């Protein structure tokens, strides 16, 4: 049922204004990663941390584009995956 989608989305988004409180870590690449909000709240990112490496985050971003049709330019994938791996990725030297 897609016809109603756009209208309903606005209403449902405002119902959970709380999602604005989810803020991604301030680091290079954050602006590009913010594009994820087109389809989902940003808490999906910290929730999926910290266990994906760069390859894992790259696969996730590509899945969003290729499977879910995320409106993200292919040339942004590298910057987004780098940001996610550095800020929400598997620790390189786990204690």
């Amino acid at each position, binding site marked *: *049922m*897609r016809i*109603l*989608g*756009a209208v*309903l*989305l606005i*209403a*449902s*988004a405002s*119902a*959970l204004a*709380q*999602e604005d409180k*989810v803020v991604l870590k301030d680091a290079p690449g954050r602006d590009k990663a913010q594009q994820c909000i*087109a*389809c*989902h*709240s940003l*808490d*999906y990112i*910290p*929730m*999926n*941390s*910290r*266990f*994906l490496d760069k390859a*894992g985050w790259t696969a*996730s971003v590509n899945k969003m584009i290729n*499977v*879910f*049709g*995320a*409106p993200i330019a292919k040339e942004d994938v590298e910057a987004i995956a780098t940001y996610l791996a550095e800020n*929400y990725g598997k620790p390189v030297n786990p204690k």
Partner: protein
Amino acid sequence: VKARKPDLVRRHLLQGAGALGALAAGRALSAPVGGTASLGLAELPDGTLAEQTLYALPGKLPLIKKTFRPPNFETPVEYFRTPITPNKAFFVRYHLAGIPQPIKAADWSLSVDGDSAERPLKFTLEQLKKEFQPAQVTAVCQCSGNRRGLFEPHVAGVEWGAGAMGNALWRGVRLKDVLARAGIKSGALEVVMDGADGPAIPKTPDFVKSLPIDVAMTDDVLIAFEMNGQPLPHWNGFPARLIVPGWTGTYWVKHLSSVRVVSAPEKNFWMSTAYRLPRGLFQTPTFKSQLYSPNEPITTMVVNSLVVSLKNGQQIQRGKPIDVRGVAWDRGNGIAKVEVSTDTGSTWKPAKLGKEHGRYGFREFSLSEPARESGSRVIMARATSNSGETQAEHLVFNPAGYHHNVIQRIYVEIV
């Protein structure tokens, strides 16, 4: 194993003591919301623990917020102390962010068609209620990925703890009666269900699921309007959702708006790619019309249990009882027994089973044993179904994180 145990126990107990100290010191260091180590299970990812909070959706109690949009909210385990999960505490799961605003019952309709239906039909809610015999079933609705967050290694997705499930009395009409009204042609293979929710952007595949026709035609599959005697909460699919007892939650389509009887397998993303398992990994029924790739769709739940009366690291006074209580469930064969061990699995004793709320529902169990000697103990509970299936000793890993039914190992200290 035994040689290592005291160390492990000490570490768990120290963690427990640390958490208590933190409670006194202030909330910054307090125990995380919805953590699973406290249940004697593997812990959620650290990022999940840091992010999740208690938050009340309109009309709901505070639940464990996994994500705001689409809303994914988990039931805190305290609500599983009773066999029926309250509507206001029932978990919420959506795949896509295009969620209908509370639908007016008068505006809703259900279409029934497809190339294997004799005639297309449309029903209002009133018509469905008036024209078909009422039916009800008590059944567990559990997300396929319940406990995904406990997978080791962690896998991407909604990092559920133990509360992406609930048990309710569902009331509505039988899907098979509605389908029979439309008439089913001989080549019917699957029934395809769609709900009023949809994607945020048009390119995202709409959430559409299918069932084998023989499953759709069983007596227990309902189009439900009521949950525990009340209209379905908006977040749980108002005004109508599909109830597929025994099968994982992914098939329980909410805000149901369309059912189609079809002669070819439904191959959208949510059937052909998502919700799949390596073929033959679990002893669950096979979805025969969906076997066109190396994996197969998830179908029914695996047998499982949850002890809710004890917390990992808990101290129990010597002479007082060790109370082991919880719920067990499976795909509808029914629970044959729940065994409890208070000695790390060396010996097992049968727990007392509570009243059966239908074969698809939660079955309560309890065992009480005096804590006679000081020292640390590991408490375990293991459910076995009437078909002889039992819980896993070790995780059966699969890439999407489904069917976690690993036995809890709860450390307690008798003092």
